[in-house]
C-alpha cells in the first residue's frame, strides 16, 4: 500500500528542487550575454565560442582524459585482482594489512593522500607530470573498484566455476569464460566509477601534478578562486550534459539487460 501522501510529495519535490536548481541556474546563465554573471542581458552562446578557442582549457581537458583513461584501466585490473584476493584467497601472511590498505583510501582525506604521494615522488626523485597523476589516481581509485567488484563476487555462485573446472577448463580459462562474464557488470561500473573519480579530482591532482601537466579541475579551480565566470558556466554545462547523457544511457541499457534476463529466465523455466 504505497501511496503518495502530500507530505511525501512535498519532501520529494523540495528535495529534488534543492538538488537540481543550482545546476539548472548554472546552465541557464551559461547562455547569458553579459560578462556580469548575475545580471541577465539576453541569450547568447558566445561563452561557448570563447571556451572552444581557449587553448589552455583544451590542453587541460586532453591531459585529464588521458589520466582518467589510463588510471581507471590500471585501477580496474588491480582492483579486480584485489577483490579476488579478498573474497577468494583465504589466509596468507599479511592479509589484515592488505584488506586495511584496500579500505583505507576510501576514508582517507584527499589532502593526506595527496601530500603523502607528493612526498614519495619527491623522495624518489620522480618528476611530477602526467605519470605521477596517473599513479596517484590509480592508487585511490583501485580501492573503489575492489569494493564494487568484491560485493558482486560475494554473491557469486562458485559451483559454476567448479563445473567448468570439472569439465576440463584450466583455472585461468574458467575465470575468463565463466567468472569474468558474470562479474563483468560490476567490473564495468568499477571502471566508470574510477574514471569519474579521476576526472573529478582536484586535491590529489594539485599535489601530484607538475607545471608540465595541468588537469581540467586544476584549471577550473584557478579561474573560480577569483569568482564566478561565464566561461566556467559554459564549461560546467557541457560537463553536466555529458554526465547526464552517460548516466541516462547507462540506466536504459541496464534496464533493458535486466528485462532480457527476466525473459530468458522465464523461457528457461518453461522449457524445464
Amino acid at each position: 500500500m504505497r501511496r503518495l501522501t502530500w507530505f511525501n510529495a512535498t519532501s520529494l519535490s523540495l528535495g529534488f528542487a534543492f538538488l537540481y536548481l543550482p545546476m539548472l541556474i548554472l546552465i541557464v546563465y551559461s547562455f547569458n550575454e553579459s560578462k556580469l554573471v548575475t545580471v541577465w542581458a539576453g541569450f547568447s552562446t558566445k561563452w561557448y565560442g570563447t571556451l572552444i578557442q581557449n587553448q589552455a582549457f583544451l590542453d587541460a581537458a586532453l591531459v585529464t582524459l588521458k589520466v582518467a583513461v589510463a588510471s581507471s584501466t590500471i585501477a580496474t585490473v588491480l582492483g579486480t585482482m584485489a577483490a579476488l584476493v579478498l573474497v577468494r584467497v583465504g589466509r596468507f601472511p599479511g592479509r589484515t594489512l592488505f584488506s586495511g590498505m584496500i579500505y583505507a583510501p576510501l576514508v582517507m582525506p584527499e589532502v593526506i593522500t595527496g601530500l603523502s604521494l607528493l612526498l614519495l615522488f619527491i623522495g624518489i626523485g620522480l618528476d611530477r607530470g602526467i605519470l605521477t597523476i596517473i599513479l596517484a589516481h590509480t592508487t585511490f581509485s583501485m580501492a573503489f573498484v575492489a569494493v564494487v567488484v568484491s560485493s558482486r563476487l560475494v554473491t557469486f555462485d562458485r559451483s559454476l566455476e567448479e563445473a567448468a573446472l570439472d569439465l576440463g577448463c584450466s583455472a585461468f580459462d574458467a575465470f575468463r569464460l565463466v567468472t569474468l562474464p558474470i562479474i563483468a557488470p560490476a567490473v564495468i561500473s568499477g571502471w566508470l566509477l574510477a574514471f569519474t573519480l579521476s576526472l573529478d579530482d582536484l586535491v590529489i591532482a594539485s599535489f601530484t601534478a607538475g607545471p608540465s601537466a595541468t588537469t581540467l579541475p586544476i584549471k577550473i579551480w584557478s579561474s573560480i578562486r577569483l569568482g564566478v565566470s561565464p566561461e566556467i558556466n559554459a564549461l560546467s554545462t557541457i560537463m553536466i550534459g555529458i554526465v547526464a547523457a552517460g548516466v541516462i544511457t547507462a540506466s536504459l541499457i541496464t534496464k533493458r539487460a535486466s528485462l532480457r534476463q527476466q525473459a530468458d529466465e522465464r523461457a528457461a523455466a518453461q522449457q524445464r
Partner: protein
Amino acid sequence: MRRFALIALPYGWLLALFLVPFLIVLKISLSDTALAIPPYTPTLDLSEGWAGIKAFLSALDFENFTFLTTDDLYWKAYLSSLQIALVSTVLTLMVGYPIAYGMANAPDHWRPTLMMLVILPFWTSFLIRVYSWMGILSTEGYLNQFLLWLGVISTPLTILNTPTAVYIGIVYTYLPFMILPIYSALDRMDDSLLEAAEDLGCSRLSAFWLITVPLSKNGIIAGCFLVFIPTIGEFVIPSLLGGSQTLMIGKVLWEEFFNNRDWPVASAVAVVLLLILIVPIVLFQINQQKQREAEE
C-alpha cells in the same frame, strides 16, 4: 605461483604507493624545518644503519607536534572542523531523511527514476556543484536578488564567505551519501508492522517514532558516518564558500604546504588529522560489521 602473482601485484602497489608514502609523512613530521630544498632536515638516516636509528630515537623531540599545541591556529582548526562536520551531518540528516522517506513510499514504478535522480549529482563534478553555489550566495547573487524582489529583505544578506555557506555546500554535495543508506533501510522495512501498530491504536506519528525510525537506525548511522568522516578533512568547500572566516584543518594543511612551504608542520597536521579520524572510522567499521552479521 599464479596465486602468488594475484596477491603480489595489488599488494606491492599498495605498499609502494599507499603505506610507504604515509611512512614518509610520519618521518618528515618528526624532522626539523629548514630553509633548503627539500625544506626539511631529516633526523632519521637509514644509511647509517643501527647507529642512525639510535641517533634518531635519542633526538626524537616531537617538536612539530608541540608546535601544533603552542599556536592556537591548529587546535582551533581541528575543533572547528569537528564542529562544522558535526553540525552539517545533523543538517544533512534533517534534509535527507524526508527525501529518503518520500522515495521509499513513492509508487513502485517511480523508484528507479527517483533513484537515478539521487545518483546523478554524484557523477557530476564535485567542484562544479560547489561552484554553482558561489553565484547563488554572493551579495549580488541570485538568492539575494530573489529575496530583494520578494521584499523579504531590504539589504542583501552576506552568506558567501561565512560558515553558513559552508554548511549549505556540505549538505548539498553530501546529500546522496545520506539518502541512499537510509532509503535502502526504509525500503526493506515491512509495512505490515505499521498497519499492526495503527490497528493497535498507535497514531501515525508515534508509529513513525516507535517503528520506522528504529528500523532505519542502521541506515541513519551509516549515512551520518559517510557524511561526517570525509567532511572533517574537506578542503574544496571551505576554500570556495567559507572565505577567510572559516577555519578547517584541510585548508590549514594545504596552506601550510603550498603557501608556507613548511613540510614538517604540514606532515604533523596530517598525522594528527588521521589520528582524529581513526575513532569515527573504527566506529563505522564496527557498525557495518554488526549490520552484516544481522543480515546473515
